[in-house]
């Protein structure tokens, strides 16, 4: 089994790229970086690497167990089956889309994934802002179907490593749009800015890793509009540069909600979408978006590039 972790080798490139983007920021957009925010984001990156090294073995053990029950067998030299690599990469990206979507729609998983979103900045250091607590969710189970199909766990690990490396460069405001054909198929800075935005129209959109086609296919795609300033982060901004609070705030919030909730609602605070509450005292992303739509419609202004607003039937059918 090849012991190869592509992200590890990419780290020096990440450092150089952040450095280059900082120089760009100095010349064009000094507000794009904030030293304390950068320090927190990069500490998230380091911590998640350590957490992965310490806790990643559990997922690997499950994959290796599941591999015993594979449907197809690529043989002992599975790595030499060249076409298996691109197929594995595309299927792994599909699995990423779903794990990422679950990461936004199931509070248990959001408790970990929120780490990636809690910066009010959007630059290459934000890309390295990765969760410490991913192993405490069940996200890795989304890749088990690939193992059962016969893709070796090491092949999947390498593909998802390259997937993560791809996602690094799209965390920037320095690139406005890529060529049209590229924007159509691939995840880009423009598409991913939408994903990190808290503007109501953008909430819970563009879950893609490498290929944006999954969002177009499953109804979660939203294009970036040019006449609305993006604000980044989470609906309820942290307002704190405390690293440990940034790591654990949503775990603490979720557990205290479960603790206080009436018995029959406890599970909902674990498995329903962030912002859901049994007494309607909070707002989910769908509620915020609907309220915004109603407000804009009442003001009589057309909601630019929002098909759903022109089509009330589509507005009622929010994806889960």
């Amino acid at each position, binding site marked *: 089994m090849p012991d190869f972790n592509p992200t*590890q080798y990419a*780290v020096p490139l990440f*450092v150089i790229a*952040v*450095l280059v983007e*900082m*120089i760009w*920021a*100095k010349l064009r957009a*000094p*507000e*794009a*970086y*904030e*030293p*304390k*925010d*950068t*320090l927190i984001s*990069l*500490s998230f*990156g*380091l911590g998640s*690497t*350590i957490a992965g*090294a310490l806790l990643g073995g559990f997922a690997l053990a499950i994959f290796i167990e599941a591999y015993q029950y594979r449907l197809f067998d690529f043989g002992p030299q599975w790595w030499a089956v060249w076409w298996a690599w691109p197929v594995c990469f595309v299927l792994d990206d599909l699995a990423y889309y779903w794990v990422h979507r679950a990461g936004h729609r199931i509070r248990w998983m959001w408790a970990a994934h929120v780490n990636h979103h809690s910066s*009010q*900045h959007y630059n290459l*250091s934000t890309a390295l802002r990765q969760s410490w607590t991913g192993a405490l969710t069940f996200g890795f189970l989304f890749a088990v179907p690939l193992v059962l199909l016969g893709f070796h766990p090491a092949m999947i690990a390498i593909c998802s490593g390259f997937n993560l490396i791809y996602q690094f460069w799209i965390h920037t405001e320095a690139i406005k749009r890529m060529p049209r054909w590229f924007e159509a198929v691939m995840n880009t800075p423009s598409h991913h800015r939408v994903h990190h935005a*808290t503007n*109501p129209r953008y909430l819970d959109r563009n879950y893609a890793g490498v290929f944006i086609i999954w969002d177009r296919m499953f109804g979660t795609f939203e294009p970036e509009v040019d006449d609305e300033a993006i*604000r980044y*982060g989470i609906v*309820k*901004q*942290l*307002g*704190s*540069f*405390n690293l440990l*609070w940034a790591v654990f*705030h949503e775990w603490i*919030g979720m557990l205290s909600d479960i603790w206080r909730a009436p018995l029959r609602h406890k599970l909902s605070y674990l498995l329903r979408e962030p912002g859901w509450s049994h007494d309607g*005292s*909070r707002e989910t992303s769908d509620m*915020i978006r609907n*309220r*915004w739509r109603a*407000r804009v419609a009442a003001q009589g202004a057309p909601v630019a590039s929002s098909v759903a607003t022109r089509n009330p039937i589509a507005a009622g059918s929010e994806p889960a």
Partner: protein
Amino acid sequence: MDIPPLLLQTAGSLAAILALAGLAWWLKLGGAPVLVGDNDIRRVASEVEDGFEPLDWAVSQDHTAALARDAEGRIMLIRLHGNRFAGRILGAKAGARAAGDTLTVGCGETWFGKTRLIIANPNPWAEAINRISEPCHA
């Protein structure tokens, strides 16, 4: 002597992190935005809570924090966080204390902390905030 590779990588990464954050600081990236005009207040308030329309407000003398009230009587605290603004609609857990022209406001969240505003006549704001009995809509 054998140094475990994870330890070596961690030390290297930590050095790189401090170097990059230090560079951001040295390049003076960030800047300090301020709340000056009415439009700033309206824009930031609607960023904190979509659709929040301030009717009246008080901006701290240093232009880094503000209180805003909407037609429903909700009070929003806005303050600088790094070089962005963050805020909260104040609930029952919020508290305020006026001393001279200094108003200290807490939204009830430990890590959001307390915000100090220098405003003329802070007492009515303090009383209004301490009167809020609505449960904090977190």
